[in-house]
């Protein structure tokens, strides 16, 4: 009898084990596949688009932000009265009747009609209660300050796959940070379409883009753009640009170019305007380069401020070329302070020859000439210096007064800023900090690139430049009561192997207050027609802006 009990028990255990094994098979081995099947039947997968990060000025105001718009789509198979709906929709959409007819005639379940539709238009269409019409939320770039700092911002375009992509400026350089990450959310619904809280639901893993907080001061940028436009028109220039930097941190306070474009409708403007000329246009800087060469020569002790030029009594012959001063006035035995004051080309030839080629090349390298500054904008260019064995005597001579050498405006501004910052050259930075989607902010610390001159030399050079402002050819435009260090520039433009005698690039570079500079500024006018001289065109613009800046910063006159 016992064996019967054992047989029954064994049978029960056997069938029990069979069930367990089968359950294991369905619940563990086939679980992922069956979950996916269930999700397909009851779940809705939704692509979650991340919101692109904002680009904000230092006061937290967005220069570029995202605006909610809608993609209007249709299901042609659900639309009975196509003609009626086409007429109704055509009143609100920017799409023609013919185009709508063609779209709604397609044998598809989903057809896009128009993207970028505003919330107001969407509400009006919703009120019509048209069957087969739906809306999908999108983000579109919105520029509250219109075209302010357009070349600095860049614009948001599309790549080959039709996805958003930033081009030029900050939108291009920081495209990955700003874009964020697309995600997918799955929600399970019952037979009536009501959402069920089930473990199959997955929250979206989309991440919004990070926000950029700039060093840019919105008020200063606005002022600079206004003054630049006025200046270009007043002096009949073909274009102009202004850059302002904090010499102590390298932070870009303002950067403007004129003419510019509207980043919202960038496709309506010529492509040449997309580039930021302040970082990508190369030019021969002319006399604004003299402080760089002079300061390095002082630093290397090859000259002192009181050194007398013994070749300055007339034009200087170098390598078969005669080098003249800008006004053909000569000052025999002039000292170095007067060389800068009179913007004396022959004096600078003397300095360059005293410096020698090796020192010149080393000095230029330390000042960052011939290489990228590393500014955080897409599109920076630079012209590498020629190898040492390709330099002739005349090249050394002309480099002394800023001709025969090509720089971008940002290179020059950064180099002059070193004189304003106790000889320390800082990396120019547009972005001050990055804000994460969770609100945490990561600052970008200032970076010292090099120390081309000592603090003592910087102080001496500053005084020489203050003297140039007070007694040089731009002294009529200077701000009385303030110590401002600066230098005019009237650079010839090379055309087909010679220099154009009728057109120039007029510029002025300077910083203020001289004793504790809050800003360093470079103003450039391209081919002004009212006057070719920097002292008469760029300098007045510089001092006009400097006056407003000093008032803005609450800096009282020093009484000098």
């Amino acid at each position, binding site marked *: 009898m016992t064996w019967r009990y054992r047989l029954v028990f064994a049978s029960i255990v056997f069938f029990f084990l069979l069930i367990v094994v089968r359950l294991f098979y369905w619940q563990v081995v086939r679980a992922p596949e069956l979950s996916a099947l269930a999700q397909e039947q009851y779940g809705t997968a939704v692509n979650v688009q991340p919101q692109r990060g904002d680009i904000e000025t230092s006061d937290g*105001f*967005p220069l570029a932000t995202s605006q*909610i718009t809608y993609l209007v789509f249709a299901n042609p198979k659900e639309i009975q009265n196509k003609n009626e709906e086409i007429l109704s929709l055509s009143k609100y959409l920017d799409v023609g009747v013919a185009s709508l007819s063609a779209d709604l005639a397609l044998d598809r379940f989903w057809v896009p009609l128009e993207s970028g539709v505003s919330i107001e238009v969407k509400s009006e269409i919703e009120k019509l209660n048209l069957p087969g019409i739906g809306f999908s939320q999108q983000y579109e770039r919105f520029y*509250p*300050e*219109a075209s302010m700092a357009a070349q600095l911002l860049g614009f948001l375009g599309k790549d080959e796959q039709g996805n958003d992509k930033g081009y030029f400026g900050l939108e291009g350089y920081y495209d990955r940070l700003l874009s964020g990450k697309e995600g997918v959310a799955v929600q399970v619904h019952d037979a009536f379409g*009501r959402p069920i809280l089930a473990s199959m639901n997955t929250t979206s893993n989309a991440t919004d883009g990070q926000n950029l907080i700039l060093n840019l001061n919105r008020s200063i940028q606005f002022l600079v753009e206004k003054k630049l436009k006025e200046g270009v028109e007043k002096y009949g220039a073909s274009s102009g640009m202004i850059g302002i930097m904090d010499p102590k941190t390298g932070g870009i306070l303002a950067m403007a170019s004129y003419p510019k474009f509207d980043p919202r409708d960038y496709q309506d403007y010529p492509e040449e305007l997309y580039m930021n000329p302040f970082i990508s246009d190369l030019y021969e800087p002319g006399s604004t380069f003299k402080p760089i060469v002079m300061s390095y020569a002082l630093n290397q002790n090859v000259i002192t401020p009181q050194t007398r030029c013994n070749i300055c009594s007339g034009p200087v012959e170098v390598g078969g070329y005669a080098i003249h001063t800008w006004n053909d006035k000569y000052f025999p035995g002039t000292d170095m302070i007067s060389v800068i004051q009179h913007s004396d080309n022959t004096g600078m030839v003397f300095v360059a020859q005293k410096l020698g080629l090796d020192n010149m090349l080393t000095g230029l390298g330390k000042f960052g000439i011939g290489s990228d500054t590393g500014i955080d904008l897409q599109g920076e260019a630079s012209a590498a210096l020629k190898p040492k064995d390709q330099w002739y005597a005349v090249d050394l001579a002309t480099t002394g007064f800023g001709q025969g050498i090509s720089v971008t405006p940002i290179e020059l501004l950064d180099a002059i800023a070193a004189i304003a910052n106790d000889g320390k050259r800082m990396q120019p930075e547009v972005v001050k900090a990055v804000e994460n989607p969770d609100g945490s902010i990561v600052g970008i610390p200032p970076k010292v690139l090099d120390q081309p001159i000592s603090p003592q030399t910087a102080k001496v050079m500053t005084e020489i430049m203050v003297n140039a402002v007070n007694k040089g050819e731009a002294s009529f*435009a200077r701000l009385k009561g303030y110590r401002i260090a600066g230098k005019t520039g009237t650079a010839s433009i090379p055309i087909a192997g010679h220099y154009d005698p009728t057109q120039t690039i007029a510029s002025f570079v300077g910083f203020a207050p001289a004793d504790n500079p809050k800003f360093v500024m470079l103003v450039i006018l391209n081919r002004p027609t009212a006057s070719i001289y920097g002292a008469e065109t760029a300098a007045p613009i510089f*001092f*006009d802006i400097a006056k407003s800046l000093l008032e803005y910063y609450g800096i009282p006159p020093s009484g000098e």
Partner: protein
Amino acid sequence: MNKPVLLIFGLVVTIVALAIIRTSIANNIVTSGVVLAQIQEQSDQYKLENSILYEKLYALSSLTNVAQKAYDLGYQDQASDFVLGKQTVALKQ
């Protein structure tokens, strides 16, 4: 009852009780998906309204707009400093 039987009885009761509790909780929360969806919809609606208001705020407080409004109201900039580009010829009596 002896200890093993008591133990097995206790385990069975615990298992059954936990199963009943789990079923009860799952039944209750599964329908809260509807409420959560409503809350999510409300939250989305507020975010949308915030977004619209921010847009209006930025447009109104932009310096470009303020400057235009000031110009329309008649405010004008101070004239720039008058600059002589060349020396003028002094008239002699």
